[in-house]
């Protein structure tokens, strides 16, 4: 029997086994035993584990409750794979419950271990939130398994869905033999689906049961500059509903306009302008002359409120609704939607219209237009209607709502007029009633995030270099500095800069450091004075050799691996560096590296050397635009990075006259 046939036969048996063979509590169920007998294909030698069964069975009852059964079986292939021997079941303590959770291991000798209730750990899902109804039940078998073991679990949970929409991901970071999503509906209901990252998957329909299934799926590796695994994985989005349209209001969405109308009803009533809000807005904008300055004053205030998340009533939809603006102003803290909502109220009190935007934060290519659903988002920002007088790269022209300035009131490092890089270009929902809908966020030009560096250095005959570094970071480059300075104490920031210098020159001393945040210009300045003894190497008493690239980029990704499996997501960046070396007396330039000029669709890089009297001027420029490069073109991206790296290693040779 060939391998595929063998696996198909297994699943035919498995389907029956799951349906008809309840196991004794401490005995592994039939489906798991069957899974343990599957012969796996030959995976790459470093494959840690393989998901043999990854299945979710959803039953919608006539009273519209869901009973969800998850069956998962994983074969541990090496000791790295032990971490997959863990059952996790999420539930909302208010509106959901775990009816049952069981797990088993089947050892290579066929013996079984059953995990009973005593081994269940029940923990809060997010320990960072002050309160969150999300909880997780866990059975951890990682210490009990080894290569060759099979781990499996079944979770039966119950919930009342907010929406008649669901999603299922077939693929993960380990290979998957069989992944299946099964949906059983009451009479008079039907379902439809969208497929992402794979060819359309048509469900098998048997009576009221729909089954979507994929087999033999490869692992998705974790690679630098890659989209998230969730965004590369084959997945489906499912809509289901009774065939009576009047009964599905706010449960299924057929257009983004519908989602906007639904969300507006949650957001708009919370924009309350009372005396306290109006007074605060007046106070904040008292010295603001222009529309942009007013927005900036309010935006900066809201951004600096403490981010605190308290999620109560999530199962009833409260996770989608902000708290009232007055409450958030009084308490002085809130989460992303609370902040956006307070900002709307403050803006409204001075006559500026704004709308919330819900967005997926973390991967700008994640949201898919084909599936109108609130379940695609995890963050809330704001769109502010502005006049023609306000100019910014962060403005989008909306056909119904006009000119909208996009702003993230939660990201305290990104100023008004700028957009966090992970949100640029993302599809997001403007919540504006009938006029709302899905729009693509602006992508700012690379130059808006310019890091402009100038170095003045003097090299002495013994190789010591002294000088100053002056950096002016704008836009998202300045956000990196703000984030760094916020995460480090002043002492640690000083040490971080020392470390940055000594990576370029052993024994470099930081003589003076100053920094200044200029938020109104979305700028951050860094000034460094340094001395680096023995930076240049003296050879034979007549040659002096040094590298003109002294300091590197602080966050540098090196794409040098020869193999690649996933697309390359390039983020916009622009760096301009100009270094002037005053050369030691009695020396002249003997050899210079060749100038480099690289031009590709995704980026440009150039270096230039110029001798001017007793000085050497070195310049380098890098500019990369937001691009998603398909994996087939990886070699071109790699060549770009390698050429850039090599150019930055090249030395200058001085010779004694």
């Amino acid at each position: 029997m060939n391998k595929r046939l063998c696996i198909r036969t297994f699943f035919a048996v498995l389907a029956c086994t799951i349906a008809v063979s309840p196991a004794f509590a401490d005995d592994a169920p039939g489906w798991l035993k069957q899974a343990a007998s599957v012969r796996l294909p030959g995976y790459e030698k470093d494959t840690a584990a393989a998901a043999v069964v990854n299945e979710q069975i959803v039953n919608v009852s006539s009273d519209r409750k869901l009973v969800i059964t998850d069956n998962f079986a994983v074969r541990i292939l090496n000791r790295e794979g032990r971490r997959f021997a863990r059952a996790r079941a999420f539930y909302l303590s208010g509106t959901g419950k775990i009816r049952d959770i069981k797990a088993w291991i089947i050892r290579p000798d066929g013996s079984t271990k059953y995990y009973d209730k005593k081994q269940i750990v029940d923990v809060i899902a997010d320990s960072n939130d002050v309160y969150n109804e999300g909880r997780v039940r866990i059975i951890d078998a990682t210490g009990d398994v080894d290569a060759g073991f099979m781990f499996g679990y079944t979770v039966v949970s119950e919930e009342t869905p907010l929406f008649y929409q669901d999603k299922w991901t077939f693929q993960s970071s380990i290979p998957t033999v069989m992944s299946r999503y099964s949906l059983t509906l009451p009479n008079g209901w039907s379902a439809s689906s969208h497929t992402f990252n794979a060819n359309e998957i048509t469900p098998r329909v048997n009576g009221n049961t729909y089954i979507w299934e994929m087999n033999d799926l490869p692992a998705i590796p974790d690679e630098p500059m890659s989209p998230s695994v969730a965004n590369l994985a084959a997945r489906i989005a499912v809509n289901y509903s009774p065939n009576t349209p009047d009964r599905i209001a706010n449960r299924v969405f057929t257009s983004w306009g519908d989602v906007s109308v639904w969300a507006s009803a949650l957001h708009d009533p919370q924009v309350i302008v009372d005396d306290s809000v109006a007074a605060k807005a007046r106070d904040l904008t008292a010295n603001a002359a222009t529309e942009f300055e007013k927005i900036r004053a309010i935006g900066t205030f809201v951004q600096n409120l403490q981010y605190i998340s308290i999620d109560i009533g999530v199962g009833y939809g409260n996770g989608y609704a902000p708290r009232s603006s007055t409450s958030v102003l009084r308490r002085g803290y809130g989460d992303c939607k609370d902040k956006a909502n307070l900002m709307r109220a403050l803006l409204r009190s001075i006559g500026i219209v704004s709308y919330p935007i819900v967005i997926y934060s973390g991967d700008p290519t994640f949201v898919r237009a084909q599936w109108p659903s609130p379940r695609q988002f995890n963050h809330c920002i704001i769109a502010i209607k502005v006049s023609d007088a306000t100019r910014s790269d962060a403005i989008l022209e909306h056909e119904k709502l006009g000119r909208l300035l996009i702003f993230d009131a939660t990201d305290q490092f990104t100023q008004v007029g700028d957009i966090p890089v992970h949100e640029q270009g993302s599809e997001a929902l403007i919540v504006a009633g009938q006029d709302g809908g899905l729009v693509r966020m602006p992508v700012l030009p690379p130059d808006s995030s310019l890091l402009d560096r100038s170095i003045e250095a003097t090299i002495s005959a013994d190789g010591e270099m002294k000088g100053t570094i002056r950096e002016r970071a704008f836009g998202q480059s300045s956000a990196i500095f703000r984030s760094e300075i916020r995460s480090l104490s002043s002492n640690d920031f000083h040490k971080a800069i020392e470390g940055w210098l000594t990576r370029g020159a052993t024994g470099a001393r930081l003589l003076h450091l100053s920094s200044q945040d200029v938020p109104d210009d979305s700028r951050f300045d860094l000034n460094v004075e340094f001395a680096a003894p023995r930076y240049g190497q003296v050879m034979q008493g007549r040659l002096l050799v040094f590298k003109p690239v002294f300091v590197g980029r602080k966050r540098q990704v090196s794409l040098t691996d020869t193999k690649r499996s996933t697309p390359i997501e390039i983020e916009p960046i622009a760096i301009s560096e100009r270094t002037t070396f005053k050369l030691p007396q009695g020396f002249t330039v003997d050899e210079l590296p060749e100038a480099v000029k690289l031009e590709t669709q995704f980026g440009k890089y150039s270096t230039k050397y110029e001798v001017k009297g007793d000085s050497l001027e070195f310049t380098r420029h890098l500019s990369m635009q937001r691009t998603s490069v398909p994996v087939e073109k990886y070699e071109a991206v790699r060549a770009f990075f390698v050429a850039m790296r090599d150019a930055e290693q090249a030395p200058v040779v001085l010779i004694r006259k």
Partner: protein
Amino acid sequence: MRIDIDPKLRILTVFSLFAVIFFAQSATAQDKGWLPVSPSDLQLAEPLVEKGADAEAIFWETRIDDSSSYDLTVRHYVRVKIFTERGREKYSKFDIPFVKGERIRDLAARVIQTDGTIVEIKKDEIFEREIIRASGLKMKAKSFAIPNIEPGVIIEYRYREQTSDAGAIGMKLLLQRDIPVRKLDYYYKPYTGEPVYKAYNISDVRFIKDRGGYYLASRTNVPSFKEEPFMPPDDMVRPWIRLGRGRISITSLLAKTQLAGLLKKDRGDMKKLAAELSAGVNNDEEKLKRFYEYSQSQINNTTFDPSLTDEMRDKLPENKGPKDTVKRKSGSAMEIDILFGSLAINSGMDARIAYIGDRRRMFTSSRNIDQDFLRPAAIGVKVNGQWQFFNPGMKFLPFRKLVWYEEDSAAELVSETHIEWTQTPISPPEYSVSKRKGRFTLAEDGTLEGTVVVELHGHSAVDYRSENFDETPAKLEELLIDDAKRFMSTAEVSDVTIENLSDNALPVVQKYRVKVPNFAQRTGRRMFIQPSYFRHGVPPYFSSSTRLYSISFRFPWSEHDSIEIKMPSGFELENAESPGTIVDSGRIGQHATEIKIDNSSNTMMYDRKFYFGAGGNLVFPTSSYTNLKRMFDGFHDADAHAITLRQQ
């Protein structure tokens, strides 16, 4: 923000890693207990104790009442001034776990704005939640956010924790916090008499009689505790007090003698086995070698058996004595040590359980034994009047060697009737040598290609084996490739082999082929190459120009690199100066390089010999940081030294 509970409670409850609770009370009750806030503190714009601090405790008071026979009561009262956004973030949210059996009373917290406005934490702003529940045990938490917190405000909180059937003995009182503290007070009312305690890393703090039966230990203007690379363990640096004595107790003495008694168990069988193993051998040294070899290679060490899961290990039968270990041919690390000790005793030697300090936690000395820092770690055997140490239970340790963190530590040698103290030896740098060979060809375009062989000896080999014994060959290969590419990202590594992983008598040997494009840099007519392949791209040890704490290295070590590079035809050496030798006056460390050219084969031979930590010198005071850094910078420069080839 989470606040540490007193360490004693860790012993008292299953879950209590720490527990602090805040609670809102009526304004009347709060007003009664709060101390007045000075206007100068409200207006203060910069920290007084430590420049640039994000927050500063104006006072941090802890009152420990151990006078009751039944309960231990600890009262906390802390007032913190916030200066920066980072300080605001740190104190904006409190997450306060507690467990069953702990009672928290009189809890209150409030924020005082710069204009004197007081914002109290209200009851409905405090959430109680179950953090974790497992096997009938629960840890709950009270969580809340501080409203309207911003730089400039003062936050203060107080609470009382009460624990039944508990005492203060063993409590660890930190005399330095993670934020600077203007006044740090510990009040202590002992059960009886005067406080008994021991202070670490500080000499000028003691408990002085105060009012109400309390004694007060106090510090003022205490800077925050910070982390530094290459610093000694926290407990060696941070000032702290331990309540109670660190001397041996009756209970622990009994436990120790019981363990020592196992060495003499099964006397008849063990005597017979010892005789069999040492047949034909007269000297103790050779006998011990045989016992060691037997214990380490003939008994399956279940502690380091990668085929056993934790579950299987838990279910293994306990060996009641060395006879069981022999009979089952299987035992844990400790059972194997006991078997070895038993063989030595039954061969007429004085063998004892050796309780040894752990340098990862505390540096210990036999001149000042502190029981709290010693644990059963090896077998001490007196050979020719000297105590020698053996740990066959540590599967990867060669004969008569200890792991690095048990070297140069206090050792207490316990038999059923006697106790002796001594200091464990420390190995010299040449014991932990890494011998590395590279045979390369350099191409005209700067690509370096060839083979690498790395031999790890001594502690380096023990570390490698103990960290990787349970890894698959594929994983070991992956780790080695990652390591080879760590500082040369473009390196292409292939043909990886790793040998002798399970043979302690031999060094761990790693071999691979490597190709590094642009290893040498071209500039027109010249090519520059850093011959120290194994140090290529490695950053300097120390980057900071200042230092707060001592500098500490793990163990003495040495490196011997032998590299041959066949140069491209058409190029000749323009410069092959060697950076020479760098050595300190005490010869604690040395870096010596030699570069030779074989003109007949156009090959450069680079030889590098390095050692550090000679004479057991591994810890250096802060005052020597500048010189030490200069020395290591010199080593780094010598490693980064480039030679020049010139096109003919």
